[in-house]
């Protein structure tokens, strides 16, 4: 057996190995640039949203939009998760042409990174596409007789609320508790203590509003603080829960925007969501329309005492700094105090 041809064969195999490595690289590259990496084509809406409206979008709004003139043939790709998490993902490069988050700061983050135009709020509804209110979800029959946020601070009550540093919904919850305390005449410090008393009673702090709902339905806690639309979604899915609108609560304003280089289909979609037809569909799915004329008081009652808005506390930019800054915010401090006390 001559040495040259088997050696050539072995060299050949090694060459194949190197080729395989190159092919591997090519596959990676190919996968990377061909699918959702680029602009996604002219008729595709790349939707990135917070956790709760998933069914509303997938089962009602998107099909209805596709039935309209402007929506014909439009394709959707959907991603849902905790509001803060999703916003940061888009900032870090996740493809998006239409975003819908639970609070304004999650859109502002994208304005700062240049992905959403500064003018996103310059319209009739100031960028807000749906409303809701913070409500308290309880077990059927309300065995612990919970009527207000004060009741949640009780000794043998367990409350589920999401983690305020990953979930937008959690921040609304906390501001609702705070607003309720302020309305009762408490001082700022006392109001924060009210928040702390409730946070003390949490057996679970899931990462998003939707996971919090699932955790509650899975048996954790006596009560869940959540969006009214979450409670309605649970009921519509056949779950046995009741919800109360506390006497004082806060109006949850859920913003939406298109990204800077979004295709026309995304802009059309956003317009559809603001149209009467779109708003009616939102209402059917548990969300309060932003158009006051379309709000049915029997389905969406107002709180007995007062409905606060975030503007009452200076707007989200101010509140995010003051309350939810990771290191110096009042809520971060409360978490720490609770943690130290728990040990």
């Amino acid at each position: 057996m001559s040495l040259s041809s088997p050696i050539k064969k072995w060299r050949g195999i090694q060459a194949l190995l190197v080729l395989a490595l190159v092919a591997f690289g090519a596959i990676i590259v190919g996968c990377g640039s061909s699918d959702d990496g680029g602009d996604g084509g002219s008729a595709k809406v790349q939707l990135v949203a917070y956790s709760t409206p998933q069914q509303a979008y997938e089962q009602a709004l998107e099909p209805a939009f596709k039935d309209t003139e402007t929506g014909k043939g439009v394709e959707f790709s959907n991603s849902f998760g905790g509001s803060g998490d999703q916003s940061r993902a888009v900032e870090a490069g996740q493809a998006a042409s239409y975003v819908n988050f639970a609070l304004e700061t999650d859109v502002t983050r994208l304005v700062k990174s240049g992905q959403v135009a500064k003018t996103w709020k310059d319209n009739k509804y100031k960028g807000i596409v749906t409303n809701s209110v913070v409500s308290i979800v309880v077990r059927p029959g309300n065995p612990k007789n919970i009527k207000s946020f004060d009741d949640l601070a009780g000794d043998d009550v367990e409350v589920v609320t999401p983690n305020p540093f990953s979930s937008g919904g959690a921040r609304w919850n906390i501001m609702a508790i705070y607003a309720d305390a302020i309305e009762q005449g408490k001082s700022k410090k006392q109001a924060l203590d009210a928040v702390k008393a409730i946070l003390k009673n949490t057996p679970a702090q899931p990462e998003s509003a939707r996971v919090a709902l699932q955790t509650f339905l899975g048996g954790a806690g006596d009560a869940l603080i959540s969006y009214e639309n979450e409670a309605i979604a649970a009921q519509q899915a056949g779950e046995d829960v009741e919800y109360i609108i506390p006497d004082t609560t806060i109006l949850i304003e859920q913003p939406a925007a298109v990204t800077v280089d979004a295709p026309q289909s995304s802009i059309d979609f956003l317009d559809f969501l603001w149209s009467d037809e779109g708003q009616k569909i939102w209402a059917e799915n548990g969300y309060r329309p932003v158009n006051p004329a379309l709000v049915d008081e029997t389905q969406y009652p107002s709180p007995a005492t007062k409905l606060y808005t975030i503007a009452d506390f200076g707007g989200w930019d101010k509140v995010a700094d003051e309350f939810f800054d990771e290191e110096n915010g009042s809520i971060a401090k409360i978490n720490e105090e609770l943690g130290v006390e728990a040990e």
Partner: protein
Amino acid sequence: MAAGTPTVPSSNRPRASVRLPWAGQALNKGLVVMWLGLMVMLPLTAITTKAFENGLDGFWTAVSSPQAVAALKLTVIASLIVVAINAVMGTLLAWVLVRDKFPGKGIVNSVIDLPFALPTIVASLTLLTVYGNKSPIGINIAFTQTAVVVALSFVTLPFVVRAVQPLLLTLDRDMESAAESLGAGRWRIFRQIILPNLAPGIATGVALAFARAIGEFGSLVLVSGNVPFKTEVSSVFIRGQIESDNLVGASAVSVVLLAVSLALLAVVTFIQRWAVRHER
């Protein structure tokens, strides 16, 4: 060969110093070094660099934050409890699988590996159903620290069993028989003759189980509640840090977890080398 048991390439047989040239060709060595370098070394270095991006101070601040410490405490304590359970139950299981005979033993033997093959999220989902509020057997421990222990016990089940089984199989029964004929009781025989021979296997299994347990994530996601300071383990804490865009903090705690795991793997290697030496 027990799955997942690392060994060091030290041969038991006397070897000539001549190696096979083709295996040692530059291209092969280069490929392997490049592969391990790109796929393993690079990510490891990236994490370590990030962890110390703000200097030693920054690292220490991140690692010593109350929430990080609480998560680490829970992680370590739960893992220690779990490996203690595993040391006992794993040995018991190995014993039953090797020394006992019953119909369906083969199936039971195969099922032991299920935690290797089942995705952790599926484990989490089903443990939530079995031990949550809709439990068919009436046990509800969801969202408690007990749930953490149960989930970790699930995923670490195979480690001790698979490390002890081969040792039991190759155990020399002569000593046992001799001891028995000398009148030693069963428990004494087990404790003084059998157990020492199983010790390296148990130790290996325990180390591997511990390394797996402290990093476990998927099986805890749905069933533990993830409450900071109560039921949040380090991996969940790290995920929270990543999603809050605090990559330095995430990397710092990751480095701690990594250091512990790598130390454990080194211990395993050491145990196996020790066992090989002491076998003769």
